[in-house]
């Protein structure tokens, strides 16, 4: 079968590798149909991911596939069903695992990232406990979007109650867009999303996030005033990984507000501790998701509450995996989610 390998920063090759081994009783064999390319894949492609720096690496942690075979103990999945799975491998024994926070397992490994190989191949084995059931009628593309949607589900839960709050999301890439959609779905009063690219803000509008700000054209503070008036904002999601974004949020959020850090920072920023301390801000990290976030993501997509179609801006066939990365490299202003079509449908 074909497999895409990130050999070293800047080089993706397609190799022919043996078909997957025999299944263990709890395992499922997926025929991969779609793999979504994630910002963190690109960080790794550049050799600039803060943690994921193991090469060669078979990437791919956002995917949708078809169940082709199941192990003898698998009960929820049958051949022909659509499925995806969480990519984390956890120890189950550390303190966070024991209190149920396995997403921040002290020994966490992520398939396709710093852990074992990911799904950038024609067939991929997943264990049933990490897989989620996909209802009929959802497309493989939508299934491949469940992973970033689960990031949005988890990040917005970290912020506490969003009902009637004014919310700012910096960054209108896939994650920022989905976080903004979730903030609206969770009852936020108004959600403002910022970016440097009109194209991404247009995608946000098509996704139902109407209050958009191009930071190249409008000062952050002015935009906050225009959109929220005297009310200001109480919650910020930083989904860019940039100094200016975190600076803007922390300088303008209401005292006592909550800032969720989602973006991956190639360079760690300077934080204004005067604001953090004296305004009693809550600056909270969020990492990936738990199983219930995947389940909620599936539910909200199937109900049409979270929109995925406007986000998928390009497709590349599997053979052009490297071209897809190069495209993103030179067209980051025109790409939100780029899909690799591993199988045709």
């Amino acid at each position: 079968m074909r497999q895409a390998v990130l050999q070293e920063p800047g080089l993706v090759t397609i190799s022919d590798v043996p078909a997957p081994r025999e299944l263990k009783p709890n395992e499922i064999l997926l025929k991969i149909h779609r793999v979504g390319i994630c910002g963190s894949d690109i960080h790794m492609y550049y050799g600039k991911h803060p943690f994921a720096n193991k090469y060669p690496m078979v990437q791919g942690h956002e995917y949708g596939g078809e169940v082709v075979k199941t192990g003898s103990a698998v009960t929820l999945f049958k051949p022909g069903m659509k499925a995806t799975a969480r990519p984390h491998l956890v120890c189950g024994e550390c303190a966070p695992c024991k209190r149920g926070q396995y997403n921040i397992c002290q020994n966490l490994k992520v398939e396709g990232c710093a852990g074992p190989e990911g799904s950038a191949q024609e067939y991929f084995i997943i264990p049933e406990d990490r897989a989620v059931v996909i209802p009929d009628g959802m497309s493989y593309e939508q299934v491949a979007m469940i992973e970033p949607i689960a990031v949005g589900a988890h990040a917005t839960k970290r912020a506490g109650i969003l009902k009637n709050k004014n919310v700012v999301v910096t960054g209108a890439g896939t994650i920022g867009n989905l976080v903004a959609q979730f903030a609206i779905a969770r009852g936020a009063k108004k959600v403002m999303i910022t970016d440097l690219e009109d194209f991404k803000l247009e995608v946000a509008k098509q996704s139902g996030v109407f209050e958009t700000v191009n930071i190249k054209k409008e000062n952050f503070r002015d935009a906050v005033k225009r959109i929220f008036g005297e009310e200001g904002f109480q919650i910020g999601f930083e989904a860019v990984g940039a100094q200016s974004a975190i600076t803007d949020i922390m300088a303008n959020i209401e005292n006592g507000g909550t800032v969720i850090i989602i973006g991956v920072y190639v360079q760690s920023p300077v934080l204004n501790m005067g604001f953090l301390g004296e305004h009693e801000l809550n600056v909270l990290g969020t990492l990936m998701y738990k199983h219930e976030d995947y389940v909620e993501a599936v539910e909200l997509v199937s109900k049409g509450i979270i929109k995925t179609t406007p986000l998928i801006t390009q497709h590349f066939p599997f053979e052009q995996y490297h071209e897809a990365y190069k495209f993103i490299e030179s067209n980051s202003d025109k790409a939100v989610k780029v899909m690799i079509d591993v199988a045709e449908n």
Partner: protein
Amino acid sequence: MRQAVLKTPGDIEIRDIPMPGELKPNEVLLRIHNIGVCGSDIHVFHGKHPFVTKYPVIQGHEYSGEIIKVGEGVKTVKPGMKATARPQIVCGKCPPCLRGQYNICQNLTVQGFVANGSAQDFFVVTEDRIVPVPDSITYEQAALIEPAAVGAHSTNRAGDLRGKNVVVAGSGTIGNLIAQFVLARGARKVLLTTAKSDFRLSIAKECGISETANLSKEKFPDAVKRVFGEEGFQVGFEAAGAQGAVTDLIAGVENGGTIIIVGVFEENPVVNMGFLGEHELNVLGSMMYKQEDYEEAVRFIAENKLVTSPLITSRFSFDKYLDAYRFIEKQGDKSLKVMIDLFEN
């Protein structure tokens, strides 16, 4: 009466001014006995406080006094009682005030920083901010209620501390009192660190904080290992206002852990967002206190849950106010709380 004026950074003058005028119905006249010199006073003295930039200013926000006279509407206190008061003047109308977080009022003014403080023989405060002190507490101890209230509030910000391992970075008055509060609130173990001052660690030991580390002699991870073994620590308090302390805490705390920012930073630090985000840390600011924190501080001191006398390391008469600051400048790491005594000549 006498008043100490910080005219410009580095220059304090004692001058003679008229006694306060008639009291309004809700006001109380205090005869000041003791004033504690706070780290933030020294920041202002150096012209390096992040928010205080207006001179001249009358400092003094940690104080005790005797009630001399009360306005006609005052019901809760009467002449002859010992008291202290919160220095916060709040608007009562902004969203934080309306939800009870008046300590982070969007229009907060603090006496001794922007408004005039208590560095004078007599001082007028309003009844809503006054905190009566039982006779069993000395005037010197009563002047420590303010920093103790900072400890009460910041340790409440950290959530349930029972059974947790806790690191407090910074062994000044605030760090010491936080560590004592952490122990009083049922933490499993507390490690108090200093960048260099063995003197301050010996004071900590006198206050019942047995686990300490001098980071000029022992690396932070080694100290954590020595004190907590494999258990690590789950909560950190940054009470040093130093890059090294933030870096150590964020790198060392257990995944999912909580860091409370209490220290004042003259220079903003770089924060490792990889750890903050991917370890799902909670980095929370803590600002001053509310009335109930003052009341809890009084209770804990009266019940001897806080040991205060070892904290007072030097005393200066009111006329030597400037000498006290110069002493701290030169001997900072050999002193802890420097007390101004208005009744000594």
